[in-house]
């Protein structure tokens, strides 16, 4: 197992950025020397300029906020349902027997196929987009919570029973903490799917959001704004992942795999 280098933490933390920065430099050089036509891919400087313009006009902030709000609601609703259902099915055999098949069927329906139905059911407002994100976020959290509960070490449960723990204590002190590593993995996957589903959802007629900003730009051949939108999605995804990483390092301190010492 890699026990870590002797360099200070902040240097090793930056290693992940070496490749992206290198690619950006390569890209800048390519557009500068005309190897890459600005119609195909605008120069990085153009992207930065577009970003500055949109920030100054307030549009960027407004659109990011709108997208984030939809994503947030989807995560909250889908995540809660997935988590509770995963707990329920994991803890109670009868619940699992009744509900798991239905969940599996819902999971396999592709989002794109649902869009026409979503428009009919929810119209073209916010509800439909939040619904799609909810659907995307639901399954990873459900599956990983369920898995975490099911793979509880039975020897620890037996020990808990012998030492006089009541059912609530068995759950709160043994089953749930044991399931947390899995639940956090589910959260991480869900956050990734959250942004992906949002992109799909924002193709349904929107008046705000990053997706709308990108579609508008496409209409007006503003390739730099389109690329900017993609970069923003990538950055938001990275941010979400970092947040979970931080959460893991706090909550899973006891786990030898997650310790930094």
């Amino acid at each position, binding site marked *: 197992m890699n026990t870590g280098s002797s360099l200070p933490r902040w240097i090793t933390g930056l290693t992940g950025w070496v490749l992206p920065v290198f690619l950006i430099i390569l890209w800048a050089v390519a557009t500068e020397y005309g190897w890459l036509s600005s119609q195909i891919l605008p120069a990085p400087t153009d992207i930065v300029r577009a970003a500055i313009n949109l920030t100054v006009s307030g549009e960027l902030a407004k659109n990011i906020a709108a997208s984030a709000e939809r994503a947030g609601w989807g995560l909250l609703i889908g995540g809660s349902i997935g988590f509770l259902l995963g707990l329920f099915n994991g803890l109670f055999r009868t619940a699992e027997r009744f509900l798991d098949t239905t969940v599996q069927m819902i999971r396999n329906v592709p989002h794109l196929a649902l869009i026409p139905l979503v428009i009919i059911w929810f119209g073209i407002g916010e509800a439909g987009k939040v619904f799609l994100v909810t659907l995307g976020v639901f399954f990873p959290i459900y599956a990983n919570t369920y898995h975490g509960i099911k793979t509880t070490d039975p*020897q620890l449960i037996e020990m808990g029973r012998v030492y006089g723990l009541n059912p609530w204590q068995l759950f709160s002190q*043994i089953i749930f903490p044991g399931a947390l590593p899995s639940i956090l993995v589910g959260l991480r996957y869900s956050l990734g799917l959250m942004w992906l589903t949002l992109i799909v959802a924002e193709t349904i007629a929107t008046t705000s959001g990053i997706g709308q900003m990108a579609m508008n730009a496409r209409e007006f051949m503003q390739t730099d704004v389109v690329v900017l939108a993609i970069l923003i999605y990538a950055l938001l995804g990275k941010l979400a992942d970092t947040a979970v990483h931080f959460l893991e390092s706090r909550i899973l301190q006891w786990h030898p795999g997650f310790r930094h010492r």
Partner: protein
Amino acid sequence: MTTQAFLKTSSNLALKLEQVSKNFGDLTVLENLNLDIQPGSFVAIVGRSGCGKSTLLRLISGLDQPDTGTVFYDDQIHKRLNGHARVMFQEARLLPWKRVLDNVCLGLCKEKKDRALEALQHVGLESKAQEWPSVLSGGQRQRVALARALVHEPRLLLLDEPLGALDALTRIEMQQLIRKNLAGKPDSPPFW
């Protein structure tokens, strides 16, 4: 290879087994076993691996039920886990997400934190009280498990081959610890 299990009854519990049998499929592990153990006894059960020591302890504790016969605690029929018995298993079975001290006071942490620290002192591990179990060695984890069993001051303590997973030297150390804390040598009284 013989392995050892231990059993300790506190001064106010008499243990009795009457015609106890246990089968697993076609295999008869225990057959019409009768046992009479006085209060305040410390019993070592020695035998070959697989001869039924674990089965016997599990029946006595209530984790499993006998096929025939009865187990009596103080002339009362004992069937399921009822809180009077504690078991120390072959694996330490510590909760990896709780610090050592919190593991030792498991289930009793509100009232017995001081007692837990005392128990850790008895097994020589008070310096590890705030560590995570994952940094301890196998022998150290078993000592923490012993401390945990001691804190509960059970009327009946069952040690199910607690030395089985340890190396020879650690096993000897552990045996001495068990005897000192449970059997009570003349110069050091038992923990309870």
